[in-house]
């Protein structure tokens, strides 16, 4: 299987049924993508495929055709600083997934309203409850 991740091509040998999250973390060593529920319910494993946020824990790696972007590919995105400055991180385990979802949102809609943010970010569960700060970070992501 060939995967393009953050612009780099990887050739990976894994059995059919292996999730994209597992390939990213275990085979390619990109552990920024977290697995928290491993069944598509929490958003911690969010990555982009061709710019669209998907859940890598229930994406079969062999079915991936587009370019994968993980948090490692977004490390210099202005959102990172926005999250840091807004204190939009507590334990941080959900945060990479939050940043990926947010990056897709601002790419499609550079000036999202609070409602836009709440709609687009509702699939990323944060048990620490950093949501108000996440909202603030996204509202001011370019500042």
């Amino acid at each position, binding site marked *: 299987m060939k995967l393009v991740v953050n612009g780099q091509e990887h050739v990976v040998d894994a059995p*059919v049924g292996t999730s994209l999250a597992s390939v990213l973390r275990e085979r390619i060593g990109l552990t920024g993508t977290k697995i928290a529920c491993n069944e*598509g319910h929490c958003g911690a494993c969010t990555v982009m495929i061709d710019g669209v946020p998907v859940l890598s824990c229930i*994406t079969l790696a062999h*079915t991936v055709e587009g370019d994968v972007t993980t948090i490692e590919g977004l490390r210099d995105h202005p959102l990172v600083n926005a999250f840091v400055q807004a204190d939009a991180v507590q334990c941080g385990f959900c945060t990479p997934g939050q940043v990926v979802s947010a990056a897709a949102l601002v790419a499609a809609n550079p000036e999202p309203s609070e409602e836009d943010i709440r709609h687009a970010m509702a*699939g990323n569960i944060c048990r620490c409850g950093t949501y108000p700060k996440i909202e603030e970070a996204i509202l001011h992501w370019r500042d």
Partner: protein
Amino acid sequence: MDLLQPSSLEDVDGGLVVHGGTEVVPLLRDGILHADTLVDVRNVVPRGISGGVIGAGTTLAELEVEPQIPAALREACRLAASPQLRNMSSLGGNLLQSTRCWYWRLKYPCRLHGGDRCHAAEGEHREHAIFGNDFCASAHPSDVAAALLALDARLRTSRRELAVADLYRLPDEGNRRTTTLEPGELILEVELPQVESSAYLKAMDRKRWSFPQVGVAVARTGGGTRIALAGVAPVPWLLAGPEELDRATPLERTAWKVDVARALAGRALAQLP
């Protein structure tokens, strides 16, 4: 396990069909579905909108921002699942999703799994059915299905054309399935009749990312008004009229859903011009 990625319908022959994978992948892992061969049908099932016809491979995310489609369907897509799941899941796949009944998901030997009792009816059923629930008390989780049922949509499959209503069947002793789709049969397109107006209202226990406690879709055509409900029966439920709610058969802990459905049905109808 093998993976096939056919490029034409003729090449689809056996195996477990997967599209977005949001339902099939977890069920495979849980051992509720089994497969030697997975068939990724994304290159086979049409995607996109053309007039009143929607490719069954169109994602819910694409539909939620689509101004051409009736409000009920758009809203059902917008309020379904989570953003990532809407990005992944196809319209056709959504119609075929299984119940969220915890007994079924946790593989209790319930009637839907071929067993001889409904664990929910006798056990924890506060999120379960108020109609069609004497054999199996599960609730159908598809917002989209209720919308399409109210819109009286028609489906074109790889083998036939049928009304959405005919896709579903209540499970019974002789047949535990909740759809009439045959093995290997694929939903290809959804055809929407002209409607004058429509709406979808959804009761959730959080404002987003919740399966419907009760979803109410209404659609008005020259011929009349159709009401369909999500989350209230083992299949999407077509309601003859709000008064049919008086004939609901709630379980001990699901009577509240009747009240919610009544209120939402009234509001949805009032929204129609």
